[in-house]
């Protein structure tokens, strides 16, 4: 059976999943505006220490990204071979992204040792623990919901954030390249995501599980931004 044929068979289920994910995203995006660091960014009042704190905290989560994706890949059984190969490729594409954050940190005036040595904040701990736990289950198709939120951040918010940060703090491109890069590239990631969803969602239980994972990750990601430097 080809991928296209599967996509046509389960179109109503995939559409249902997209509707659920879209609603999770809308709630997530509108709630983010009330998180202090994002509220300051939106109001044009970000300080350099806010941005440094954001980078320092994000780095501790991003460094785990390709590891939990790889773990999820390793738990996808023979039925999900094509999906597994998408996961593996995605993990490879992202697995050194955290280094960009470290460079940005230094370019924005931070000290390299500080970002390398920082601990995960309370929210990052919760987010990371959930990711590894969920990825450790057999055939963890729900992880697509987790990826949807993380990739969505890159595609929809990273670019406008990077531009606002640059303008408000008078920084060069080399200080915001992580956010700018994800803003420019995650469009391709989302096309790949659509393909992965069409491969994975073959019953209602999986459709709902993907949306549920997205809802959990959206809340935990917001927690991570609320708990900056609370370690």
């Amino acid at each position, binding site marked *: 059976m080809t991928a296209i044929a599967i996509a046509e068979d389960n179109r109503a289920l995939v559409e249902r999943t997209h*509707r659920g994910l879209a609603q999770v995203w809308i709630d997530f995006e509108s*709630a983010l505006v009330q998180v202090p660091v994002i509220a300051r960014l939106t*109001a044009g009042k970000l300080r350099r220490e806010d941005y440094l704190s954001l980078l320092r905290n994000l780095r501790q989560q991003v460094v785990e990204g390709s590891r939990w994706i790889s773990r999820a890949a390793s738990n996808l059984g023979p039925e999900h071979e094509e999906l597994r190969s998408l996961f593996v490729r995605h993990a490879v594409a992202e697995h050194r992204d955290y280094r960009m954050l470290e460079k940005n940190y230094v370019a924005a005036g931070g000290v390299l040792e500080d970002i390398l040595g920082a601990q995960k904040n309370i929210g990052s701990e919760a987010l990371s623990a959930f990711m590894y736990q969920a990825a450790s289950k057999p055939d963890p198709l729900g992880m697509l919901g987790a990826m949807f939120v993380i990739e969505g951040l890159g595609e929809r918010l990273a670019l406008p954030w990077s531009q606002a940060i640059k303008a408000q703090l008078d920084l060069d491109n080399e200080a915001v390249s992580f956010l700018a890069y994800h803003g420019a590239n995650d469009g391709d990631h989302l096309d790949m995501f659509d393909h992965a969803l069409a491969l994975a969602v073959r019953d209602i239980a999986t459709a709902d599980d993907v949306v549920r994972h997205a809802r959990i990750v959206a809340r935990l990601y917001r927690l991570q931004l609320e708990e900056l430097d609370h370690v």
Partner: protein
Amino acid sequence: MQPVYVTATAQCLPGAPVGNDRMADYIGRLSPEAERLGRLTLRQNRIRSRHYAIRPDGGSDWTVAKLAGTAVRGLLDQVDAARVGFLASATTQNDLLVPGLASGVHAESGLPPIELASLQSVCASSMMAFKTAALQVAAGEHAAAIAVGAEFSSRYFRPGHYHGTATMRADGTLPGDAEFLRWTLSDGAAALLIEDKPAERGLSLRIDWISLRSFADRFAPCMTGGAIRGEDGSLTPWSLREGAPVAAAAGAFQLRQDVEALHRMLPVWMGEFMRLVDEGRIDPNAVDWFLCHFSAHSLREEMVKLATRAGCMIPEERWFTNIYEKGNVGAAAIFLMIDDLMRSGRLEPGQRILLAVPESGQCIMAYAGLTVVGEKQ
């Protein structure tokens, strides 16, 4: 609950249609640069004509109560006034600060003593009035109710409301958020009669459900009037300044629309659509007529993509609008569309109609499902 039906519709548009080239005669001229911004706005909203209750000399024979009252009289030509027990009015800005518009409309309408409700918001106030009237009949409180929406916004766009205020720049231009609305909104009224049984002859619209939701828990005010905006973005009500002249000089009495915030609301409005699909209220494939208080072309490409992926895009040939000829009449707009669709001769029994009314004020989204019943005449 008692099933309820829209059994008659009416509209009141003041004067002859005004084309784009003559708009400035009515709302007045601020500067050539302001008019250039106006042409840009018109290219985006694609409105070709509208109606104004204001005269080029700044005078008027109308009030918003008279516009609404005239639309209600249009209904009373079709039903015995004694049968109507309830009147709900909707508008953005009443003629008076006190009392409510429904009293003014009642006085103008020729209705005997009745129960009434004044709903004030922006575009979605129409759906508040619609739902209130429908519930009154559904609950058995009244056999027939009227919902009317009306706007007379052109009067606020005259140069006299801008000259000498902090809003007006030295070069005679306004900030985009103030100029945008001058070239977008216009005047008129429309009314619906809602009854506990279908009309004896012709087509009626059964009201299947009405949904309205506010998202003010996550959005700051985006379309405002009556406030002074501080440098930090905070809003002070005009009445908390030293006096009305001080507030007026600070530009408090001008309508403002943050266009950027409008774009941030689009996904939220669409998310409501998806929620209603998931709840089984909307079946996108079963909608024959989509009456939406914004146009398909104003949806950005990413929105169309999102809607399509989620199985929520209603094909453009099923969208019905009159905004290009009749303008954006705020709280009257959706009733105007229903009236024009009822008169179009294109409705068939059994067809499903979906109404959509977003409000940018502080983010509201309203939808309603109707079914065409009765026999085509």
